[in-house]
């Protein structure tokens, strides 16, 4: 049963190849169905492999399949090999599962786009890369997938490259990720320099031969890679801009799967982190800081997708907080539940935009639950899940992280708990602004020329506010004369319903009632072994923390209700400009690169390059020319001069021989 694991990445790769060759001929929507079928097949394979793994005994759940030698260089052999264990197969299951639903959703969402088949080419390539990343048995193959998802993310963010903002956002994501990748590469080099191998089995088996400082250095370098990919402070800046891509991309890549690669990598290298425990503290602090920081920004955004983007960064911060606390299972648990509810939130946002003719400004929405009942219902489930209201899935995973954080440090717990309040607040704010209250879209539509709804996307005043509008050739919706939100087709609604179900009951994966209901812990515990942190807090403390968090969540929801539903507090008081501009971090980076960065570049180009580099090259030439100019005088052209020189040389040799022997 486990032997078929190679099919897991092979099916999306096949889809990529097929669509590349015949995608245009298949066209809209058959290309989408082909892609969806193959990814669904991949999900089925993952389920079979998972079942096969489950049937083995708990301590024998590692299976390595080597396909062929990829890079043989001297003593270094990098095979294409897959490592099937609890961690990789859990990741593979939810990656393929969520991907299948998003593929299905994309068929409806991308309908009518000029480059419909191309979109699915990228999506399949993305799933392939992600599966390579997850299943790889060595760092190099993981890095292949790592770069693959990076490249796909670049293609997909700038999918509508006719728009300058999309092209720029793609570039930004690419460049920011490079910074992280450099850490990943250096980490790999360091591992190879000390252990002479990059296979996971060999490296983790010999981790104890590393000194603690080396292990810490490796851990920190690899964490730098994770910071880039998983959008943590300070490399988070690409993710909010990545919302320029089509909404299914935001859901697939920037919420559910790709950004979790960093968390996955940290879980994968847990023996190294265990050996250099200082790294864990750094991870926990960065995680908590990002968590809080991104949540504050999310409270003041008006773009429906930007709120979700910052919320993703914040939730990823929770996962890193868990990793830093040694709670790998909690991190993975939250990763899975987050994949469910965040994919749902993004797809719901996409559905809202689809129904609202590409409107993204929440100030121009309201009362949409009457027109889009399925979207509203599923979105509300996701809201309750992410806000941490029991018994929805997000509550259980967040609670587990917070208890582990309490064990690590009370300060970390406090930051996490405050963030829980903020999370509940900004998500409630979004739900109230979009689905409840007064319908504000009618005035917004009346403000525009009502008969020119087709051109609405271009004339959108909101675009000036940096909330770029999204239009993907779905012009037929704009052809209706009157402006009225509408529900989305079934290919879009079905994934919403499925994900809503998963978001509601996802907590059942790891219910902390007693040992037997903690399925995920039981499943993953043998893998992490002693790296896994055992919760030491007493049951009473747990209940207290649980109650405090719940109260904070309710305060958050209540506050949002007072502001955005009852209008008892003016909205602008709670949306200061510093938060609306994301603490001016982007502006700061721009100023840094444009000011000192540009100066450094200019100095390098006009001083260092001109004087030192060119000076060295020209200096060698001058030296040779001047020497030649001096020495050429010896060559007089007179034969007798040469003869004299030869005679003198012969005499000198003769004298040397004679006097040496004498």
């Amino acid at each position, binding site marked *: 049963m486990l032997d078929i694991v190679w099919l897991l990445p092979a099916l999306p790769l096949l889809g990529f190849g097929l669509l590349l060759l015949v995608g245009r001929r298949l066209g809209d929507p058959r290309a989408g169905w082909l892609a969806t079928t193959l990814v669904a097949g991949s999900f089925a394979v993952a389920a079979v492999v998972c079942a096969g793994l489950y049937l083995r005994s708990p301590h024998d759940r590692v299976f390595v399949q080597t396909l062929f030698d990829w890079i043989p260089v001297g003593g270094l052999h990098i095979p294409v090999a897959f490592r099937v264990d609890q961690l990789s197969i859990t990741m593979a299951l939810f990656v393929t599962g969520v991907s299948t639903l998003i593929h299905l959703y994309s068929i409806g969402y991308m309908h009518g786009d000029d480059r419909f088949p191309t979109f699915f080419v990228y999506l399949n390539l993305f799933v392939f890369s992600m599966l390579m990343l997850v299943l790889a048995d060595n760092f190099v193959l993981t890095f292949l997938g790592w770069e693959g998802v990076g490249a796909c993310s670049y293609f997909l963010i700038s999918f509508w490259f006719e728009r300058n903002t999309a092209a720029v956002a793609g570039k930004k994501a690419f460049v920011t990720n490079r910074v992280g990748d450099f850490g990943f590469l250096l980490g790999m080099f360091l591992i190879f320099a000390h252990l002479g191998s990059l296979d996971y089995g060999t490296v983790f088996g010999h981790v104890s031969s590393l000194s603690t400082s080396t292990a810490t250095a490796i851990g920190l370098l690899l964490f730098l890679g994770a910071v880039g990919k998983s959008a943590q402070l300070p490399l988070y800046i690409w993710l909010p801009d990545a919302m320029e891509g089509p909404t299914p991309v935001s859901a697939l890549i920037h919420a559910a799967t790709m950004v979790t690669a960093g968390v996955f990598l940290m879980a994968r290298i847990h023996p190294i982190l265990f050996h250099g425990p200082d790294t864990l503290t750094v991870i926990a602090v960065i995680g908590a800081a990002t968590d809080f920081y991104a949540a504050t920004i999310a409270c003041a955004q008006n773009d429906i997708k930007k709120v979700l983007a910052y919320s993703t960064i914040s939730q990823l911060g929770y996962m890193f907080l868990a990793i830093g606390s040694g709670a790998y299972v909690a991190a993975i648990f939250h990763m899975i539940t987050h994949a469910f509810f965040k994919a749902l939130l993004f797809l719901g946002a996409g559905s809202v935009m689809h129904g609202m003719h590409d409107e993204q400004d929440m100030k121009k929405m309201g009362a949409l639950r009457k027109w889009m009942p399925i979207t509203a219902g599923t979105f509300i489930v996701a809201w309750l899940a992410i806000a941490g209201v029991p018994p929805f899935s997000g509550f259980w995973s967040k609670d587990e992280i917070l208890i582990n954080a309490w064990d690590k440090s009370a300060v970390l717990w406090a930051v996490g708990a405050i963030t829980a309040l903020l999370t509940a607040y900004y998500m409630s704010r979004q739900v109230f602004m979009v689905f409840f209250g007064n319908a504000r879209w009618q005035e917004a539509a009346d403000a525009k020329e009502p008969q020119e709804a087709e051109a609405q996307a271009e004339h959108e005043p909101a675009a000036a506010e940096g909330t770029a509008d999204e239009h993907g050739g779905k012009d037929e919706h704009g052809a209706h004369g009157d402006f009225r939100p509408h529900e989305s087709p079934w290919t879009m609604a079905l994934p919403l319903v499925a994900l809503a179900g998963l978001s509601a009951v996802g907590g059942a994966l790891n219910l902390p009632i007693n040992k037997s209901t903690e399925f995920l812990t039981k499943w993953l515990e043998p893998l992490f072994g002693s790296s896994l942190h055992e919760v030491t807090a007493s049951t009473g403390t747990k209940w207290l923390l649980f109650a405090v968090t719940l109260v904070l969540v309710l305060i958050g929801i209540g506050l949002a209700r007072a502001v955005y539903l009852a209008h008892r507090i003016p909205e602008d008081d709670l949306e200061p400009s510093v938060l609306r501009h994301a603490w001016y971090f982007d502006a700061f980076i721009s100023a840094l690169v444009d000011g000192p960065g540009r100066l450094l570049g200019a100095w390098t180009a006009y001083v260092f390059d001109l004087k030192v580099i060119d000076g060295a090259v020209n200096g060698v030439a001058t030296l040779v020319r001047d020497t030649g100019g001096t020495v050429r005088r*010896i060559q*007089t*052209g*007179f034969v007798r001069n040469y003869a004299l020189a030869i*005679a003198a040389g012969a005499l000198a040799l003769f004298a040397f021989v004679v006097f040496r022997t004498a």
Partner: protein
Amino acid sequence: MTVPGAWYLTLAAFLFVIGAVGLLVRRNVLVMFMCVELMLNAVNLTFVTFARMLDDIGGQVIVFFVLVVAAAEVVVGLGIIVAIFRRRAGATADDISLLKG
């Protein structure tokens, strides 16, 4: 009565010195050329003498090589001299420095 080997060697040394000094002091290209031949043959004589004294045929073999090289050299050298005579009246070595660096 046989002539001792040392005499031949002395003769060869005299011939070589005559050639070398001639090459250095004369300006006429043809005479310089003859001086070079003189030096070459002085060396040939030395080779033959040693071949006889040491009873080793190797010395005589080398002489043939030298003769062949000398013949080739004469061809090239005389060709150059003829070419020079075509272009200018005399052939004084100190007047010609075409390859000056």
